[in-house]
């Protein structure tokens, strides 16, 4: 809960700052490079932590397979739910226009 609040404050402040101040451009190359370096730091340190942890190192293959299966399931689930949602919304819309035509 605390982490959620921290992220909410950080993102809210950032969006407000980016929106209000003309100093910031959405296409800033410097910020893009900075984000890339941050990402490298995070991933390197995560890899380092994972490698140094015997329990994790032993479970890399099984957890890797778990991640792959979950990603396939997640993609299929999202696709089917959104497809059903779209069809339901379109069904409502065509039913409404059908009623109007009948009148």
């Amino acid at each position, binding site marked *: 809960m605390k982490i959620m609040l921290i992220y909410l404050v950080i993102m*809210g402040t950032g969006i407000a700052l*980016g929106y209000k101040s003309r100093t910031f451009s959405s296409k800033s190359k410097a*910020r893009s490079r900075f*984000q890339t370096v941050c990402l490298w730091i*995070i991933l390197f340190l995560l*890899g380092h932590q994972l490698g140094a942890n015997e329990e994790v190192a032993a479970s890399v293959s099984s*957890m890797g397979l778990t991640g792959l299966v979950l990603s396939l399931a997640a993609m299929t*689930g*999202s696709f089917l739910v959104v497809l059903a949602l779209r069809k339901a919304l379109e069904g409502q819309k065509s039913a409404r226009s059908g009623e109007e035509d009948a009148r």
Partner: protein
Amino acid sequence: MMILILVVVLAAGFACGRLGALSFLGPYESDIILYTLYVMCFAISISLGAQYREGEGEKLSGKALLYAFGTVAGTLLAAVPMSLFLPVSAKDAMIAASGMGWYSLSTGLVYTYSPSLSVATFVCCVSREILAIFLMPLLIKRFRRPEVVSVGGSATINSCVAAATVSGDNSIVLYGILVGTVISLMVPFLIGFLTGL
């Protein structure tokens, strides 16, 4: 190419950890990761704010918002039954899947909950992004934008560009950025909520 570099960076870190190199970083690593994530989130949100000020932010329709929620719901619903076949609980399966393709943020967030689950989260996110790049151009030939974009989760920009190149419909890129942004905003809260259960 970018994904390949990231995988190499992660593998280099993993190799250093296995070999015991840079072990002096150990006590500070979690804090450095957390604060770097905060800084990254801040930089990303400044970019989002600037995009709207410059008039380049897509307008959010009610339907697009509904499809974004549908994408998250579909991901979580599909993750639960997978726990029957995988060595993780239903809750952990949902946590790993709830990265929605945003590996840089979700892997770090999940690490504080379970280091081994963060491996599954990383693979889940990276494979979702890579598979989406190949699947979306195929799906766009038969299906409409909402369900095609949902495949990528939050990581829709690369895959939408690929889909736009194949279909010639460039509007899918802006639409994908919009839905992807909404989903991205949900990721830290979703992981925070699920790990706190």
